[in-house]
């Protein structure tokens, strides 16, 4: 992100966003190509690897940016984009919680003990298991962990994105780590 304007012919990111707000479809596509991976990856891990939800969130984020851009330039573009994405994830999670997901209750429920091991063997993807457990954290704990480990943001940057202090980020990371450690304890021997 924010790697534009390396040559004089390329518009800066702010110029690109300005072109987007004026309906320039080519500029929109360029902006999308540059940023879709980050938005999609955050959403994918926020929702425990559920691609359909992540696709929805990605679509909403870019539609919002292109139709109702709120970037005022008072923070870095990347910070703003992360904030829009996390907010969209939070909104989506709230909507999902409005009704009980019978699919989860009837088919899987909460996997326990050996079931988890079995699921892991089937998927052979530790990232999937970790993402699934991260998705069970409260949104307040989930967002900083996803921003830290998917995007590699520092605590300072996470604090800017979430609009809180670094101390709050550190505290949430601590609680998130603890809960993850407890939920993934069964992997310790396997790893």
């Amino acid at each position, binding site marked *: 992100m924010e790697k534009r304007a390396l040559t004089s012919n390329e518009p800066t990111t702010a110029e690109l966003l300005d072109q987007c707000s004026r309906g320039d479809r080519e500029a929109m596509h360029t902006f999308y190509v540059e940023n879709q991976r980050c938005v999609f990856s955050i959403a994918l891990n926020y929702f425990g690897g559920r691609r359909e939800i992540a696709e929805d969130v990605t679509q909403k984020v870019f539609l919002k940016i292109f139709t109702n851009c709120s970037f005022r330039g008072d923070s870095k573009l990347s910070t703003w984009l992360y904030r829009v994405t996390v907010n969209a994830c939070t909104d989506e999670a709230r909507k999902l919680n409005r009704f009980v997901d019978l699919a989860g209750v009837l088919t899987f429920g909460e996997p326990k003990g050996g079931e988890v091991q079995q699921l892991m063997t089937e998927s052979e993807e530790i990232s999937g298991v970790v993402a699934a457990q991260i998705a069970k954290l409260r949104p307040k704990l989930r967002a900083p962990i996803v921003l830290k480990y998917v995007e590699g943001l520092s605590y300072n940057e996470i604090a800017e994105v979430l609009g809180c202090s670094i101390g709050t980020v550190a505290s949430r990371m601590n609680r998130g780590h603890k809960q993850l450690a407890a939920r993934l304890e069964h992997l310790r021997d*396997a790893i």
Partner: protein
Amino acid sequence: MMKDVHCISQLSAFVDRELPKEEQREIAEHLLICAECRLEHDRLKFAAGLASHLEHRDAPPSVWTAVEIGLDGKTHNPHGSRRTWVRFPVLAGFAGAAVFLCAFGFLAYFALFTGEPFQANLPANSSGLPPRTAGSVEPVDPNAVPANSVIALDPVNANSNIAVTAPAANAPQLPQRQYFEFETLAGAPKVGSRSTATNLVVGDVLETDAVSKARIEIADIGNVEILPNSKVKLVGTNPKQHRLALDRGSLHAKISAPPRLFFVDTPSATAVDLGCEYTLEVDEKGSSSLHVTSGFVAMERDGREAIVPAGAMCLTRRGKGLGTPFSADTSPAFRRALEHFDFGGGGSQAIDEMLTNKNFYDIISLWHLLSRVKRDDRERVFEALVQYVRLPPEVTKDGIIALNRKMLEAWREEVERAWFE
């Protein structure tokens, strides 16, 4: 000082390396002495290590199509019909409930108004489940070894060469690099018969001659320079530990990582990184010499451990175990006497020589000697050490002579403080 206070609330920031350098160092030092914080640190580090496996992925092309259609003012679902307000599983649930209620009402009607129990025309399989077909899932034998089992390095087996073991059943196959990259700094280091190699795979041995040198990158935690006339083997690498074995020669390690992530086995002991920089030498007989220039290193052998701080050294002798740590600035006479005590059976005579030649820099040795000498000599060592390092108020001479664990611990902190100041 941080050393005296639990630091559990800061451990995530420590694990993520988000603290200022000084605080990182203070917490690392605290972890050396506080089992409670160390345990919590290990748990958080484990969680952080797992979280670092989260994936980065591109959105599928259908998302851009959906965005474009959305921009054109149409509603579009990039993945078909999922986004219905009440989803299919919910409808299915309601439908199931409705069927159940109807069936219940039907049965109740028969029971109440016909006076006969209802007899359904059941199929031969009276369980009501569909008959098993060729595609049905068979019960899983819990003892069966899964086909995708891998042979992995046993991370627990210290001092092993390439110790391999079958992992627990159902263990996941982790994406991890089983090699280190290295670069040639001088001459032509060799990996086996390959003189042009740039990777050191687990099990590989890298050798340097009198004029060659190489630098190995240890994952993302630092590097190790292999000096001339050395032979080093990559024993294993995984997220929990990286392990080399130095058979002979010298290496210089510069590691920036939480404690106990990087190990070097020698024929006479194992050097355990506690966040540090050090030089380790192994001679033809397998004896080793460690010189720590930053942080701490633990030398371990047969359950014994000597923690060596920056500015100190430690010798080991094959077949004779660990020596007592000593200052790199100690006098030759003190060092000779210490070696005589550690490896030559010098006893009380060697202690006399040490006490005659001691200076302030020898506090690190005197501290270690307290628990190594006979009781008769301990009082003399105590008197020598107390000349340089004050006793904390809660510590008594009798307690130290009796090797009271709490008192030793309290005085050790004073010794460490004096050492670093």
